[in-house]
Each structure stands twice: as C-alpha cells, then as structure tokens.
C-alpha cells in the first residue's frame, strides 16, 4: 500500500463532510469503548492487568534480539523453517519464491497487517499467484480495493448494501440480501471451495513464544485456522516485535488483546502451532515457514526512545479511545496503521518528513495511553517526534519546518526569561488582537490565528493582564473583602 500520509488534512476534511461516516464513527466510538470497558472489567484488577501487560512488553523491547534468537532456536527444533527478511522486497521475494517452487496458483490469506505493510498481495499477483483474503472484512476491502478503515475491523464502514452487491458479483451470491447470516453464508461457501483445494496458506502472527517456538493466532472467523491447517505448506509472516518470552506471558497478553480489541474474554478461535505436523499426527501442514520481517524496525529498535513504539500488540484499543480518530476514521492516516498507533508507528517506518500531520494532529489528551495494554506513552512519543523534527535530527529524517518558526520560538525564549520583556510582548499582542474586537469579543483574525476563528471567538484581551493587576491586588489584601 502506497503511503498517502501527506494528504492527511484533505482526507480528514472529506471524512468530516461525510455524514454517514460521522454517524458510524460516533456509534463505533461509544460502542467500542463500552465493549472494551466491559471486557477489562472482567479482570479482578484491571489496572494491575494493564501494568503486567506493560511489564511484559517492556521486557520484550529490552531483550528483543535475544528473544528472537531463542524463538528461532526453539521453532527450528520443532521442525519449522525460520526465514529472516530485512525489508519488504526481501520478504515478498522469499514468499513468492516459496510459492513458485511449489507451482502454486493461489494462496489463502489470513488477516495480517504486516502483509499489508509489505505489499505481499501485489507481489504475489505480479508473480501470477492469486492471493485470496479469507477474513470477511479483508475480503471485502480487497475486492473493493480500499485501504483498511480500522486496524481490526477493516470494513466496518462499508454499507451492507454495497457488500451485498459485491458478493453477488464476486462470491456467487444469487439474490441481494442485507441479512448478515446470508451474507456470511455466501462468503463461507465461496471461501470453503478455495480452502478445499488450497496448497499454501499465508497468515500473520499475533504472538511468537520464544521459550517454546510456538506461533499464536487470534481470530473470530476460523479462516486463519483453515488457512493454517488445510494446505500442505503454511507460511506465517511476523514483524519482529511480535515475540514474547514465555507461554505465561503470551497467555496474559492474549487476555489483554481480546479484551482490548473487542471486549471479549477470549475470541472464538485461538490457534497455537509449534512446528509442522509430526510423525503420527493426523493433521497440520507438512511444512511450516516463519518469515520474520524487519522492514525498518531494527533501526527503530536502535533508538532507545523510538523503541517504545515496538511495544504495540495491534489490539486496536487506542482507536476508539481517540477523539480525533472518532471524527475522521482510519483513511486520513494514509497507511496501514491508523489512529494513535498509526501516529506513533507510521512516522518511524515512513520517516518524520513524510508524516508531519500525523504527529501534529493530536491534542495530547492521553486517552490512548490510558487504554494501552502494552504501556505505550503515545503523547510522549509524539512530542519526541515533534522535537526531532524541529531540531532537524537526521536519525528519523526530520527537519524541514515552517520557515521562521524556530526564530519565533527563539524570540519567545528570549522574552520568557524576563518578565518585563514578556509583558512588553503581551501588550504588543494585545494591541494587535484587540483591533478586531467588538463589544468585548474578537470574532476574526487574519493570518496566524485564522484556524481558531473558523468556529470560535476569543474574549477581547482585557486592558490589564493579571501581572498588571497584581500590585493593586496586594493592596486589596490590607482591606477586608
């Protein structure tokens, strides 16, 4: 997927004008938060559960290299083949080669964000291998050629009538229907046929357990289980931060993941694979490949601040918690990862210069941080990006701010240390802003504050600031009120 992060404002405006999208988002925001809250409420001590989650992910980002090596050793010992990919091209080439060697015509796919990040579907198509998304939402957006609206529910915004038309055209549904059961059945019939003959399944990974070499997938539709168990060859693609130290850790993160994401104690399906089918076992793939993808993450890992972003487990809790996502939805973020986690992750993976609006479009309200089961401090990270960008730090490719902005803050810093100069500046500002005042209210202001006055007034700046009132207030002290 080609990043469109520079078109944030225009895309956000489109979404703000789309009343259907606004209504859906408002519902989604309230419903999503309520579900999550109910789910978290099933923990005996929700705050402690979040803390433990943060501690586990904290250990992961402290010991990532050795955990990955441990995972590789244990997965290999159980018969899996672990392949490493430095970037998207390498990862795609590895998977395409696996398909080509086996003469594969189509693959079934489980929903996977990293596969979207890599552009794996496009790479497969180019090599004559048809990728078929088997997650209902992914299937819909794949057929419609749209980006995901939400990291967990990619098609939650698509009207049911549009899905009905789509299924009649692409999935052999005979008559139009808006009944979810009928629609589900149509998709099921179509996908079952594909699963029956499939030779290779490609899925993502929710967690990789270092101490056992196990990969874990979490889902509600059973399509990932099908994708992993039907074909002869299974390919699991994971970004390298998906590893956790032990099975205990994995189970706790699983509890947090399903509650954070859908308010569920557990999803309908959780599959754990420790290697391919062994002698005497009746099912499972004959060969299992685990592709571990870097794609910019080791560079992120090398930066002690930025590394914090690798805590993320892609639960999606931060999306319905975000008041801005709640107004504009997932499209304006311009890439796979949307909402607060998109604001945190996309700048690191795409560069600060490409994603300026993403880390600026935040009020630092802290709702995302409060909902995060992995201990990410999103506001602190966004401030870090803003600072690196302003300072022109080359590490994350920042450094082309509005001309004159830095000089403005230099001037500000000069004034801020001396009250007399600060107050002089204040008087100057007052005289400018108050030019437009009428009856104590300022309703317009050209230039720097035009955004503010789009929908709001400002009280006229009073004749005397608090500072100027202070002496008089001190005298008042002597008198009784």
């Amino acid at each position: 997927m080609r990043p469109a992060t520079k078109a944030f404002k225009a895309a956000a405006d489109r979404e703000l004008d789309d009343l259907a999208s606004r209504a859906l988002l408002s519902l989604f925001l309230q419903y999503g938060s309520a579900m999550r809250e109910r789910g978290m409420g099933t923990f005996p001590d929700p705050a402690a559960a979040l803390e433990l989650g943060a501690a586990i992910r904290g250990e992961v980002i402290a010991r990532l290299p050795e955990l990955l090596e441990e995972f590789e050793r244990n997965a290999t010992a159980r018969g899996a083949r672990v392949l490493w990919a430095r970037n998207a091209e390498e990862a795609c080439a590895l998977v395409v080669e696996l398909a080509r060697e086996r003469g594969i015509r189509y693959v079934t796919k489980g929903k996977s964000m990293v596969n979207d990040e890599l552009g794996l579907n496009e790479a497969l198509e180019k090599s004559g291998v048809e990728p078929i998304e088997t997650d209902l939402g992914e299937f819909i957006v794949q057929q419609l050629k749209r980006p995901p609206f939400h990291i967990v529910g990619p098609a939650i915004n698509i009207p049911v009538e549009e899905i009905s038309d789509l299924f009649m055209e692409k999935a052999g549904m005979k008559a139009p229907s808006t009944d979810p059961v009928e629609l589900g059945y149509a998709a099921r019939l179509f996908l079952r046929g594909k699963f029956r003959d499939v030779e290779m399944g490609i899925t993502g990974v929710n967690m990789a357990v270092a101490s056992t070499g196990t990969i874990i997938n979490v889902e509600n539709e059973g399509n990932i289980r099908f994708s992993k168990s039907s074909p002869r060859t299974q390919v699991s693609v994971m970004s390298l931060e998906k590893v956790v130290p032990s099975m205990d850790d994995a189970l706790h993160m699983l509890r947090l993941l399903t509650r954070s994401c859908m308010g569920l104690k557990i999803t309908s399906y959780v599959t754990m694979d420790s290697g391919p089918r062994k002698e005497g076992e009746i099912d499972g793939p004959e060969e299992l490949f685990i592709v571990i993808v870097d794609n910019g993450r080791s560079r992120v890992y090398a930066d002690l601040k930025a590394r914090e972003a690798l805590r993320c487990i892609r639960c999606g809790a931060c999306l319905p918690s975000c008041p801005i996502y709640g107004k504009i939805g997932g499209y304006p973020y311009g890439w796979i990862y949307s909402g607060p986690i998109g604001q945190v992750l996309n700048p690191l993976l795409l560069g600060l210069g490409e994603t300026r609006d993403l880390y600026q479009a935040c009020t630092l309200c802290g709702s995302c941080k409060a909902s995060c089961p992995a201990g990410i401090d999103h506001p602190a990270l966004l401030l870090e990006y803003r600072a690196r960008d302003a300072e022109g730090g080359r590490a994350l490719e920042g450094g082309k701010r509005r001309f004159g902005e830095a000089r403005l803050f230099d001037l500000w810093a000069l004034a801020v240390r001396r009250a007399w100069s600060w107050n002089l500046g204040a008087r100057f500002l007052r005289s400018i802003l108050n030019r437009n005042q009428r009856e104590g209210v300022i309703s317009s202001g050209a230039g720097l504050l035009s955004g503010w006055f789009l929908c709001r007034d400002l009280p006229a700046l009073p004749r005397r600031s608090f500072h100027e009132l202070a002496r008089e207030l001190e005298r008042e002290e002597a008198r009784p009120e």
Partner: protein
Amino acid sequence: MREVSLLIPCLVDLLLPEIGVHTLRLLRRLGVRPVYHREQTCCGQPAINAGYRKQARKAARHLIEVFEGDREIVSISGSCISTVKHRYPELFEGDPSWRARAEELASRLFELTEYIVEVLGTEDVGAAFEGKVAYHESCHVLRALGISEQPKKLIRSARGTELVELKQADLCCGFGGEFANSFPRISEAMVKEKQDRYLESGADLLVLSEPGCLLNIGGYLSRHHPEKRAVHIASFLAGAGTEGAN
C-alpha cells in the same frame, strides 16, 4: 498565616486575568495568604508542544528559579502543572541537577481543587450557585494528574447547586493549543460535540478546571450559544462569572 504561591498560567495572565483574581480571593477567604511572584512568565508548554525543547528549557529554568523557594505552589491549569511534573524531567534528561530541581519543585506544586480538598482539607468553601452544573473533565487534570473527585466534591458542596451528569465528560474538547488552530475542522467537530453534550445535560452552567478548555468551549459557545456559560472552577467557587447563567 499560611502562604501559598500562585502559578498563573500565561493564558490566564493575558486573556482571562479575572480567573487569577477569583483564585486569589478564594484562597484569602479560606484563610490562606496568596503570594504572586511578578517575575513569572510561561511554563514553556507551547514550545514543548511545537518541538522546540532548547527554547522550552529556558522557560523551564526560569520557572524553577522563580518558584523553588516556595513551600507550597498552587496553579489553576492541569496542563501547566503536568508540564512541570511530566515534561520538565524529560527536558532535563541529560542534566541531573536541573532535573532534580524540577522534580523537587513538582512535589510542592498543587492543582487548586486538589490543594483545597487534600491540603487544606475542606470541601465547603462557601460557594453558592442556584442551579444545575455539569463538570467537564479536562484531559490533563483528569488523565495527567488523576484529579476528578476533588472538583466534583467542591461543586456538590456549593449551596443550591446540583451536579448533573455530563455524558462523555472525559472526552477531549479539541483545544490542544496549536492543534485548535492548525486542525480547525477536526477541532470544531470535537468542540461542537462537547457543546452538544453540555446542552443535552440540562445544566445551567458548565464548570471546568483548565483555562485552555475554557477558551475553546467558551469561545465556541460565544459564537453558537451565547446564552450558555462556561466558567473556570476558581470563578465558580469564588462566586463570580456565573451571573446570568440561569
């Protein structure tokens, strides 16, 4: 007499000085002597939020120098307090001596309602307002400082006042400093939602503890529902700024 130093946010100094005056009168009424250092300017938050840390450090050092001799400091902005408590240690990451001074200062810095309820140990400050009040939970007061019960206790204790539920009270109003100006349409959608919840609540008055939110929500009301009022909790408790609200 107990003395407390006032940290007046620059927004209040310049745009809403009456809130500072109300704070001062309220504290005097509670038997505390407020002290105002005229050397104070700004905590540095605008520079931090814009990414200019070098410049922000100058503001931070200045603030520390102005206030570090005080035993107790009170402010009326959650975001200024959070800047001192949470952002200063980051600013002085590579400078242990300034970092220690910042952290030491932060331990003596209180939000107004926190100071009244927890330090002075009182809930009834002699406030009175006949009518229904809704309370907006400002982001930095609620999530950065964990302050929510204190202001509500004070509102409930006001004579004649009924505290009514504000739906999604903890949802951001869309201020965010420069955000409101840089992303005006998103900000507008957010502040409109806040206004709508206020109107639905049936409250006669919206009370909040953050000057930034007051500028935003108040500015939006002024344009769209001038008959509805929003006030800072210092004004509410001092019995000012509520005229004509019901």
